[in-house]
């Protein structure tokens, strides 16, 4: 499967996405770069509005008016998805080679079509299956995501299913054409805790069994620590720290990453209050020139307000923080 070991499955390079709103140009993604290798799970964490979803929606070609991709490039299996021929490629690739699972299963399925129709239409469109073939495959898929009585379920409508069940249907739909990359955009945020665990378990299990690559977008650092090989931390439209998951969690370098990890409630430590990061994220219509985290950072120095840093720490780990540079050189 891995034809050219050099090229990663997906590479996003300096992606710039702007939204032209009435209030001004929102710079949702300000030069985001990351890559995903075959069979790898990448976690993207960051607070709401940090540009996580925008970055992956750009990969899927799902940036609609008033949003525009205005810089950078996206390579899937070494070929651009943004050059003139790429637009056509996106349409062939999405749903087939790259599939996406969305946040809210309650609204992600079309309420007026049966589950069966919504799964089989993918199969029929991408793989040219006949009605019977697609139905059989759809039943296998439902079986794969642990939905019982698949034949009966196919005839049901989304409103006849629970949230967890619907998310399983979404996952089945994503798996339909055996994609090489699954993008899961906060797949458990809208579900209650016990269902969250089940869905995550299912995702991990499928990831290992089918050896697909996964991009997992989440707020939940615990989930990332558990499931992901690599992690990218986003803040204000940029990736501030990226590296293999274990070292990043063991020794976070960027003050924002540290803040996030500190803000995660722990069972093994006795704390009276939740720890939080003071301040609010910057306005992306006029983001600060230097490090976006500078106003909230307790270690900020002079350079921070002027320039963005990007420092390689070895082991494929990068941090955009001047303080980190000091630490490394020290």
């Amino acid at each position: 499967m891995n034809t050219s070991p050099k090229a990663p499955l997906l590479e996003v390079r300096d992606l710039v996405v702007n939204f032209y709103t009435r209030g001004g140009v929102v710079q949702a993604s300000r030069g985001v770069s990351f890559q995903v290798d075959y069979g790898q799970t990448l976690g993207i964490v960051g607070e709401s509005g940090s540009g996580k979803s925008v970055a992956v929606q750009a990969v899927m070609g799902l940036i609609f008016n008033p949003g525009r991709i205005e810089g950078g490039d996206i390579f899937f299996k070494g070929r651009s998805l943004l050059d003139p021929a790429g637009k056509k490629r996106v349409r062939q690739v999405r749903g087939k080679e790259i599939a996406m699972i969305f946040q809210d299963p309650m609204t992600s399925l079309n309420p007026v079509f049966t589950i069966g129709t919504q799964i089989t239409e993918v199969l029929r469109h991408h793989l040219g299956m006949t009605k019977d073939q697609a139905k059989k495959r759809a039943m296998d898929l439902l079986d794969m995501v642990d939905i019982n009585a698949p034949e009966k379920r196919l005839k049901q409508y989304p409103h006849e299913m629970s949230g967890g069940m619907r998310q399983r249907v979404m996952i089945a739909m994503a798996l339909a054409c055996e994609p090489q990359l699954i993008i899961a955009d906060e797949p458990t945020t809208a579900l209650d805790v016990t269902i969250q665990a089940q869905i995550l378990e299912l995702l991990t299990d499928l990831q290992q069994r089918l050896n697909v690559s996964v991009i997992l977008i989440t707020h939940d650092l615990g989930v990332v620590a558990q499931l992901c090989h690599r992690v990218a931390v986003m803040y204000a439209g940029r990736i501030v720290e990226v590296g293999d998951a274990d070292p990043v969690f063991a020794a976070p370098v960027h003050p924002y990453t540290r803040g996030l990890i500190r803000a995660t409630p722990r069972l093994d430590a006795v704390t009276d209050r939740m720890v939080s990061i003071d301040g609010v994220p910057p306005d992306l219509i006029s983001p600060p020139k230097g490090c976006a985290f500078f106003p909230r950072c307790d270690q900020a120095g002079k350079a921070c307000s002027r320039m963005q840093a990007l420092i390689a720490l070895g082991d494929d780990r990068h941090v955009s923080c001047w303080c980190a540079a000091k630490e490394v050189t020290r």
Partner: protein
Amino acid sequence: MGRFIYRRLIHGLIVILGVTVIVFVVTRMVGDPVQVMLPLESTPEQRAAFEKKLGLDRPIPIQFMEFMGNMARLDFGDSLWQKRPAMEIVFEKLPMTILLTVVGIGFACVLAIPLGIIAALRPGGMVDRVTVFGSLLGLSVPQFWLGLLFIVVFAVQFKILPTSGAGTPSHILLPALTMGLPTLARLVMLVRSSMIDELNRQYVKTSFAKGLPFVRVVGLHALRNAGLPIMTLVGWEVIRSLAGYSVVVETVFAWPGIGLTAIQAIEREDLILIQAIVFTAAVCVVVINIAMDFIYKLIDPRLKLT
């Protein structure tokens, strides 16, 4: 399902009953048919004889009982004006009005749905602005004036279409256009706003992410969800065309349908014929409403027929 049909039929019967009672009362309170039907110089004896012939001399409750009984048999009696069974006239004219409505509303739907969708794809774009402007124009123009305008332009000036009447297929063009244009204007606005709502929903994004073709996402996934409000308006427009606009349009174009007949019957105080027409209109409204409920259920399986 059986329970639904049963309940709807009962409701429908109540509506029809209510309407006929009102018609019965009103036609007997407003104006005196005898006065209109007979020449001015007729003697009181002649008037009494005529009244007796119509059964108007008997007490109102008796008249009402008889009226109800006749109605159940679809027998409203002979039209005072045409001297033949009123229902016969209705059944003769109704198909013409249905034809006019179907062509008019059909034309409106065929144009409004694609136009509304295209406008909704780019709100604020060129197509959208032209559509909204045109539709406001269409909403503001009175229907009878529109009809007269069409006659002046197409029949009098260019002499390409007949002014009025029925017979050849070209006769239906102007009245159907007059019937359909205000509907088109209302419908296009609704299709546009419903589609804008639907296109912003998450399932549309999912459908695109599944790699489905644009036409399928917009024309099937989104449009079917927008179908409920659209069908509501279409049903309402059909009802208003059959039992409302037809009066105006048919009068302007001398289209021999039930609307024109209604006006003529009112002018002649032909209360038998009026009763038959109003009864028929009420039945049409009830039938269309029941049909709409079935269409809703077809469009949106979440609805329960109760």
